[in-house]
């Protein structure tokens, strides 16, 4: 029986195949006599027989033999395919390749340094040397050669057999795996794999950083180690989905870190399948969203508690965002605010202007601002001022407009009241001026035509004129100083000059002055004040004069006014009661505001600026006191001022 003696370091599968085909091969090198190459080739042919020859030729592994001089004596089809050429028998040395390179694929390798040459030189197998070959068509293959020496029966080296294993594909697979491994290592996201029973099989650096456990602490452990107790049910749910081959993406949850903290993470889980598509485990990518969550929360909080409305549009000016503040102002649900929907909140008469202004700004990418009124369920609720600017994406491309809406209702009201005030003030100032101017002209007329006769007749006219002029000049002076006080209060420059004085005396003086202005009313005073009062005498006098003058002014049909002044250990109290037109309950808090004037029956108006009580309240408060009113429409009013007794401690 012919015996082929082979000593080949083959891959297991290949060896298996070889053994199956050639069960008689002995792997022990026998002693061998000397043969030349051709003889070996002949011997091979002879020894293989026709069947063996067929097998050699068609085996799907590249095989070739050399004699001891390195000449190629035999090769098979697979070898020709691998080399991309057919070597010349007995002429090509050591290798049938066109060119061979070191494993770097760049440095040429001398043929006499190739593994086959080494095997022949040193009579030993070489299986640890990868080479790269180039084919005549220019393509490269990565090769793992496995040359083994062949011996004759006497144990003499007779040649060598080489099997070339094409490892090009494995090489590129190795590279891909290396790249993947690098990605997994350097990922910011935790990448973890686990078996279907929840045992961790890999744990990358980001997982170590995010969860605080080292890979060696986690691999082989149950993944439930990092799942908070109240979320343990998540795991079977996830596994259930995985077993069905489903992916889970961006599942927001929490995991517990090594030091016990809870981390907000976003989890994506994919099944790992084997070649037969059977699910054998899971890969998990966990993103630490704690910071993202904080940022989100911050933005959300700022946006929803902001006292101003916030909005954003896309590049075409369509609304893409409004905040909770705006939603609550308008009562229009978010989904109806998108696009041009927010416009529904704008009062119909303001829509066109608001729209026009925005479109003009949008065209020129300019800043935008406008005022409009909005309604809620058809009822006008607010005056709004909106400002917006274009915003740009990371690449500097225009991305839309973002802006704010401020509620300027109060400002508008004050503006309107200020307008009214200026109209009213000019009217109020004109009245005494008219009077003064008229009397002066009257005096001029008398003076110009004066003769003894006329002068005597005009005495009374001149006297009345001068008296009225003097009175009206005083009125003008008072109005102008009220204006000055208002401006001082508004700029915080109302200076007080406090010292001790007798409040009782001041009350008597003030009452006398006011009594002179009215013949109709008797001012009745109950003065029980004892001791001294500390404050600005002139300013307190101004307050008392103002309240008494109001009492006269607003009770045109009454015949008296009551005033009481008293003090105890804690407080000094001044009350002034009139029996006039009274004040509606809803107006009562507002009479101390600026520019507010009470209207009488049938819109009867009373002269004055409507700032007297505002100034009075300011002065009283600056003395640590309070001023209040009790009144009924048509039943007169009581104004009460309460000062702390020693208000030095208050000021």
């Amino acid at each position: 029986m012919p015996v082929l003696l082979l000593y080949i370091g083959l891959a297991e599968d290949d060896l298996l195949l070889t053994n199956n085909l050639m069960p008689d091969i002995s792997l022990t090198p026998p002693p061998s006599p000397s043969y030349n190459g051709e003889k070996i080739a002949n011997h091979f042919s002879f020894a293989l027989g026709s069947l063996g020859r067929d097998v050699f030729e068609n085996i799907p592994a590249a095989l070739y033999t050399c004699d001891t001089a390195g000449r190629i004596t035999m090769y098979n089809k697979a070898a020709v395919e691998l080399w991309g050429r057919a070597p010349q028998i007995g002429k090509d040395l050591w290798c049938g390749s066109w060119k061979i390179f070191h494993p770097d694929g760049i440095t040429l390798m001398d043929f006499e340094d190739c593994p086959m040459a080494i095997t022949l030189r040193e009579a030993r197998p070489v299986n640890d040397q990868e080479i790269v070959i180039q084919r005549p068509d220019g393509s490269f293959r990565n090769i793992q050669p496995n040359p083994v020496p062949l011996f004759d029966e006497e144990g003499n080296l007779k040649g060598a057999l080489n099997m070339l294993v094409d490892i090009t594909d494995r090489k590129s697979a190795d590279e891909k795996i290396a790249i993947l491994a690098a990605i997994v290592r350097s990922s910011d996201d935790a990448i973890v794999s686990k078996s279907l029973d929840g045992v961790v099989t890999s744990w990358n650096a980001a997982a170590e950083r995010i969860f605080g456990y080292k890979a060696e602490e986690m691999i082989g452990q149950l993944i439930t180690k990092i799942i908070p107790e109240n979320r343990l049910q998540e795991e079977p749910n996830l596994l259930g989905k995985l077993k069905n081959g489903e992916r889970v993406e961006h599942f927001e949850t929490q995991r517990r870190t090594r030091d016990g903290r809870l981390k907000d993470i976003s989890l994506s889980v994919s099944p790992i399948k084997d070649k037969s598509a059977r699910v054998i485990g899971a890969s998990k990518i966990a993103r630490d969203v704690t910071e993202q969550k904080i940022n989100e929360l911050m933005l959300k909080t700022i946006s929803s508690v902001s006292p101003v409305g916030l909005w954003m549009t896309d590049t075409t000016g369509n609304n893409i965002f409004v905040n909770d503040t705006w939603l609550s102002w308008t009562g229009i649900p978010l989904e109806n605010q998108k696009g041009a929907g927010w416009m529904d909140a704008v009062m119909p008469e303001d829509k066109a202007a608001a729209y026009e202004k925005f479109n003009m700004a949008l065209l020129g990418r300019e800043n935008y601002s406008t005022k409009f009124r909005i309604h809620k369920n058809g009822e006008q609720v607010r005056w709004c001022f909106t400002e917006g600017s274009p915003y740009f994406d990371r690449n500097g491309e225009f991305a839309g407009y973002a802006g704010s809406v401020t509620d300027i209702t109060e400002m508008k009201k004050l503006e309107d009241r200020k307008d009214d005030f200026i109209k009213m003030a000019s009217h109020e100032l004109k009245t005494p001026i008219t009077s003064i101017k008229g009397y002066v002209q009257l005096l001029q007329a008398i003076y110009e035509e004066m003769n003894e006769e006329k002068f005597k007749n005009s005495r009374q006219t001149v006297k009345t004129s001068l008296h009225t002029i003097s009175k009206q000049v005083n009125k003008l002076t008072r109005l102008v100083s009220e204006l000055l006080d208002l401006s001082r209060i508004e700029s915080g420059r109302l200076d007080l000059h406090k010292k001790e004085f007798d409040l009782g005396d001041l009350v008597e003086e003030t009452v006398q002055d006011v009594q002179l202005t009215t013949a109709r009313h008797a001012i009745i005073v109950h003065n029980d004040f004892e001791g001294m009062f500390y404050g600005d005498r002139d300013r307190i006098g101004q307050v008392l004069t103002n309240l008494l003058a109001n009492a006269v002014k607003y009770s045109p049909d009454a015949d008296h006014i009551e005033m009481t002044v008293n003090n105890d250990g804690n407080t000094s109290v001044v009350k002034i009661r009139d029996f006039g037109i009274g004040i509606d309950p809803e107006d009562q808090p507002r009479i101390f505001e600026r520019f507010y004037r009470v209207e009488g029956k049938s819109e009867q108006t009373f002269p004055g600026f409507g700032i007297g009580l505002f100034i009075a309240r300011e002065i009283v408060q600056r003395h640590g006191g309070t001023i209040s009113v009790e009144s009924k429409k048509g039943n007169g009013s009581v104004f009460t001022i309460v000062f702390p007794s020693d208000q030095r401690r208050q000021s």
Partner: protein
Amino acid sequence: METHNILIVDDDLDISFMLKMMLEYKGYSVSIAERVEQVPDILRSKPINLVIMDMLLSGVNGVDVCKSLKEGKDTAMIPIIMISAHPFAKESCLEAGANDFISKPFEMADILSKISRAIHPSSAEKAKNQKFNLPG
């Protein structure tokens, strides 16, 4: 010489007295009404040739009073001059039928010439006034 009676309606007595003295000095006879309610009595008591009325009266709008006088059968022919410190009042006063308007503070010369013109209208103005006051 015929004495013309002028009625001044104003709740600011300082101004009413000033006008009264001035107009009396110029030879007119002057009555004063502090309140609108007094006006009908005065109109009944003597023939009034001219009414000078402030636009803002306590509780009543002078413009409404002017209108009702101009609509009244017996009072329509009485010329009315309205006075106001309100800068934009002129139009509504003239719409209500007032013959003229004087803004406060006023020039005495101005008011005197307007009074004179209202009491002695030129023939053209007379025709206009008559036409204006035709009933219906």
